[in-house]
């Protein structure tokens, strides 16, 4: 179980005052806060062993390289990845998706199909639209049902022999729903299609076993899971990564350069052009350590309690509409109050020190589906408390009163 008071000590920012009030941070789906351990690992790197990696024969470069590569190993272990060279450090989820989308330019033919869900973040829509434009492939969309979950029957119908790629998030950032990716993967594989899973919203909340699920491509960002900004990773099966061309040219990613001919380096370097976010990569490993110390099962259980608690309280308020109702949900609640704009509620809550997100959450198709301009989204982490939820509910009631 989780000792939340003890955990909160690891996050000094939670003691901050905002607009004269105690900060209540319910915007975890946008980015999580970071424990001191992770923050200090960054300073530690710069104060003690900052150097450029991979090519230096000197001590600092060795130490930095060893630590950076250690993070790759931690990722391998955490996500149960078969080979180290299947892990590509990226600058984040968006970058990872773009590596694959760009690479598939050389694989897709006119008339091939890509299936994307209607629940995706823009980062997992736009690159595929761009890919379709380049290649003449067709983008097909898995629709959602009124309660927000994917219409799996419809998915079965659009899946066919021309489908080359299915892309879907493990958890939707706008609604928090967990998608049945195991079913989706198995079904897609039957048709010979590959599957890319966007793990940006899931990795902080439960463990993903990449081999067990037989995922072809996987992406996530460190900043959503207690790690720093500007770093993430792309996983791809070795065979598949070998099939696609590099995304960027540069140092590190080549084995031989002449003006006549350049040959690319082996995985993972082929996709890691240029000096990477070294401090970020190292701190990413520390973030995984931290999550594992607490235990992702404990985190899931605790966050689920918060979810239930808050959902019940919200349902007691008049005119609240919650979008995305399902048992398979992480601790995210997206809602509106009838007749009041989400932006207004967010603004008043902010004055009360409560950070929530308002708007489309980079998922305009979902908003279009519900025909709403946006929602108020509260998203919890394991360092949040029921007491904070109580204060949020009071604040929300106050906001409603002011805005009516």
């Amino acid at each position, binding site marked *: 179980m989780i000792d939340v008071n003890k955990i909160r000590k690891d996050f000094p920012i939670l003691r901050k005052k905002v607009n004269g009030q105690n900060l209540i941070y319910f915007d975890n789906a946008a980015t999580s806060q970071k424990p001191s351990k992770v923050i200090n690992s960054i300073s530690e790197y710069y104060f003690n062993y900052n150097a450029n990696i991979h090519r230096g024969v000197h001590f600092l470069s060795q130490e930095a390289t060893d630590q950076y590569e250690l993070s790759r190993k931690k990722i391998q272990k955490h996500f149960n990845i078969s080979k180290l060279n299947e892990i590509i450090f990226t600058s984040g989820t968006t970058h990872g998706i773009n590596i694959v989308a760009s690479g598939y330019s050389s694989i897709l033919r006119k008339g091939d199909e890509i299936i994307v869900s209607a629940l995706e973040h823009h980062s997992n829509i736009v690159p595929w639209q761009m890919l379709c434009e380049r290649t003449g492939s067709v983008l097909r969309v898995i629709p959602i049902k009124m309660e927000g979950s994917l219409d799996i029957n419809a998915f079965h119908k659009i899946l066919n022999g021309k489908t080359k790629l299915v892309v879907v998030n493990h958890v939707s950032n706008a609604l928090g729903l967990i998608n049945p990716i195991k079913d989706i993967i198995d079904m897609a594989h039957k048709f010979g299609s590959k599957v890319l899973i966007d793990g940006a919203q899931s990795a902080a909340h439960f463990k993903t076993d990449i081999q067990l699920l037989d995922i072809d491509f996987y992406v996530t960002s460190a900043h959503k899971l207690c790690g720093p900004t500007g770093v993430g990773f792309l996983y791809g099966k070795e065979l598949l990564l070998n099939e696609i061309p590099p995304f960027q040219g540069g140092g590190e990613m080549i084995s031989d350069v002449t003006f006549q001919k350049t040959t690319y380096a082996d995985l993972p370097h082929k996709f890691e052009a240029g000096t990477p976010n070294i401090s970020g990569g190292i701190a990413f490993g520390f973030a995984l350590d931290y999550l594992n110390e607490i235990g992702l099962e404990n985190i899931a259980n605790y966050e689920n309690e918060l979810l239930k608690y808050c959902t019940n309280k919200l349902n007691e308020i008049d005119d609240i509409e919650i979008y995305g109702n399902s048992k398979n949900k992480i601790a995210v609640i997206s809602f509106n109050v009838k007749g009041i*704009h989400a*932006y207004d509620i967010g603004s008043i809550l902010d*004055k009360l020190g409560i950070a929530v997100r*308002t*708007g489309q959450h980079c998922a305009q198709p979902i908003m279009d589906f519900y025909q709403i*301009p946006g929602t108020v989204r509260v998203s919890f982490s394991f360092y949040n408390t029921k007491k904070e939820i109580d204060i949020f509910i009071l604040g929300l009631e106050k906001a409603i009163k*002011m805005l009516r």
Partner: protein
Amino acid sequence: MTINELQNEIIEEFSFFENWMERYEHLIELGKSLPLIDLKNKTDDNIIKGCQSKVWMFAELKKNKLKFTADSDAIITKGIIALLIRVFSNQHPKDILDSEIDFIDRIGLKEHLSPSRANGMVSMIKQIKMYAIAFQTQLN
């Protein structure tokens, strides 16, 4: 009144409030009493891009002065609009272009100037000045 006099009037008006709640309550009141925009001007063409809430703004020249009407789907944004219209409407385009706007910060609403608000207010002021440029050219 000149733009500056109007700014000062607003600053004085807001100086009576003791805390953010009173300020916001007033802003919401202003938003509620914002005159309606003519429906025929509430078109997609008149939407200002980059705001989290939708903002429609329309301008027309009457007796060499600019007249603004606007609307939003969010009430706080409407309050902000009401203030901007009070300051900028019925002014000569040239005066609008020459004006320096500082009342927002001084009445304790500076959070609305941050780029993280997806530029709501900044975009509105920019749009107002664009209208002024356009009509100014027309006048010359």
